[in-house]
């Protein structure tokens, strides 16, 4: 453990991290946001899921520094009278959970398909790659609309509220795994012909071991880079779905559903319900994308900048 830490400290990755103020800033903001969102039950002043403390009389209060503001609600309240700041923290947590799990799901499916496709080749390869092509050509919004409609009919709206998170993870995951499959397949094709693979076969290792232990670790660099971008992408997808009313229900709002909720009241003057969750979303996604950009530059020796 300690040895690994030492190895990491001496690595080029850590070295370039230390020398990039942008990376340090983005990473700090990212960690800060993740920590406060997961610590929301401790950090936030109210629990927006607890209907007993919500008072409808508090609804649409502006942020506390404005004239009509209430010092109890720092960023104001939404239309149901929930504290906006607390709701945003809980919403960010939901967004992060969906984003990360959707990416894990995508990566798992995509990596397995890409590995098998690239390693086995031939007809299996052609078949799997056509499936990815088909999957790619279906917009995820259509999948999401159909899936949530079917789900609501099959299990009822109440069950949907409970199972919205796993459902969104699957919908977003299913729509984006071809990216991983293609990337991994491309790297596997490059790695497959290298001699260490031949050597592993000569040693008598079976195909599964060769694929997952020997080839997979050699293809992880591009996977790592697209994963950062995919997290941002998944958070955006979730926000978009929620904005369209296909995502998280109003009782357990994510950032997207908060923006959606406030959107109807922007013209009646309650701009803060949309603006603050929107800013938080932009900040979070931007930070991840910048980190991904930096990571790509560092891990790609062709872009090496002294």
């Amino acid at each position, binding site marked *: 453990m300690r040895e690994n830490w030492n190895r990491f400290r001496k690595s080029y990755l850590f070295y370039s991290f230390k020398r990039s103020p942008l990376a340090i800033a983005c990473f700090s903001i990212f960690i800060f946001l993740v920590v406060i969102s997961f610590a929301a039950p401790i950090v936030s002043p109210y629990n927006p899921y607890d209907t007993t403390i919500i008072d409808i009389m508090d609804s649409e209060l502006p942020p506390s520094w404005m004239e009509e503001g209430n010092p109890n609600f720092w960023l104001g309240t939404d239309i149901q009278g929930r504290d906006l700041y607390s709701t945003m923290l809980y919403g960010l947590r939901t967004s992060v959970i969906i984003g990360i799990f959707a990416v894990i799901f995508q990566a798992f499916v995509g990596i397995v398909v890409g590995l098998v496709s690239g390693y086995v080749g031939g007809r299996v390869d052609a078949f799997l790659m056509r499936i990815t092509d088909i999957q790619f050509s279906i917009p995820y919004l259509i999948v999401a609309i159909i899936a949530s409609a079917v789900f609501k009919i099959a299990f009822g709206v109440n069950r949907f509220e409970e199972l919205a998170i796993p459902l969104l993870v699957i919908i977003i995951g299913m729509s984006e795994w071809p990216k991983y499959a293609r990337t991994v397949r491309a790297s596997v094709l490059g790695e497959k012909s290298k*001699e*260490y693979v031949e050597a592993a076969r000569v*040693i*008598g*290792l079976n195909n599964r071991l060769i694929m997952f232990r020997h080839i997979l670790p050699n293809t992880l660099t591009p996977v790592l880079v697209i994963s950062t971008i995919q997290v941002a992408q998944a958070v955006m997808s979730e926000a978009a779905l929620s904005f369209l009313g296909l995502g998280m229900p109003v009782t357990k709002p994510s950032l997207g559903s908060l923006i959606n909720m406030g959107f109807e009241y922007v013209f009646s003057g309650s701009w803060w319900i949309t603006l603050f969750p929107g800013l938080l979303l932009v900040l979070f996604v931007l930070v991840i994308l910048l980190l991904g950009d930096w990571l790509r530059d560092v891990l790609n020796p062709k872009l090496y900048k002294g």
Partner: protein
Amino acid sequence: MGHLLEVQNLKVTFALRFGDLTAIDDVSFTLDRKEKLGLVGESGAGKSVTGFSIINLISKPGFISEGKVIFEGRELQSLSDKDIRSVRGDRISMIFQDPMMTLNPVLTIGTQMIETVRAHKKVSKKEATKIALEKLNKVYIPSPEKRLKQYPHECSGGMRQRIVIAIALLTDPSLIIADEPTTALDVTIQAGIMDLLIELCDTEDMGLILITHDLAVVSQVTEKIAVMYAGKIIETGPTDLIVTKPRHPYTKGLIKSLPGTHQPGEALKQIPGMMPTLTDIPKGCAFHPRCEIHESICTTEIPKLQRTGENGQLAACHLLEKTVDELNGAPSTPEQDN
């Protein structure tokens, strides 16, 4: 007791779109424990295909169309996929040309060694580590405990080839096939690796097949040599005979082209022409277009391996009588040549 390895009339065919291609044809040889055989020939002569076909690992369109490989009394081509995997890497190990490429760059040396042991023996990680250390000691790697935790790029070329050899030894194989093991290394390290291989053959009671294009290396290491040309063995026999009294014009050409058999200032001899590609092997003796002494029979009939008169030496040439001394450089007898 039979031989450790017996290859009988092996023929490997590649089924290509425009027809079948014979990569190696009618290759036979035997090998005992502690014995070292050199497979010599130019690029494309079929040396590596022979090596791979022994462990039944020819890449896809290729397959063994005729002949047998008998190893420790078992016929290898008839084994199931699972059984052959327990032979390859366990009883037979293979070493490749470039140690830079044969080690996985992202796994530590220890991981790769332990994995190899555990692929063949049901032992705990601790025991596997012990075996790995023991083998690293055998190939004279200083401070092996440290090496186990390192990645391949942290070791030098010679060190890496020693590690590859140690990996080959992990399962105590009885046969090692070394495919140009020293080509990527510089000369001083080459000698060290060769000495190591010779020593290990003796102490570990193993057979060694050394595949190389370097006749000089082979002549120092092996007891037997088989010279391959265009997929066939064209001359085989004990090393000293092949080196001092070659009978096939091709072998003679090879030996003459070695530096060291020449006077200073004299131009190196070379065999004119190129080896034919497998798609258009000339009729008759495949070597005849490049042969200095060929006659009409050479262009029509394929020569068979036949005894040359010397003990254990076989050559595939129609004109053996002519090759006794004609190409050996006139008045001196072969013995004095040496």
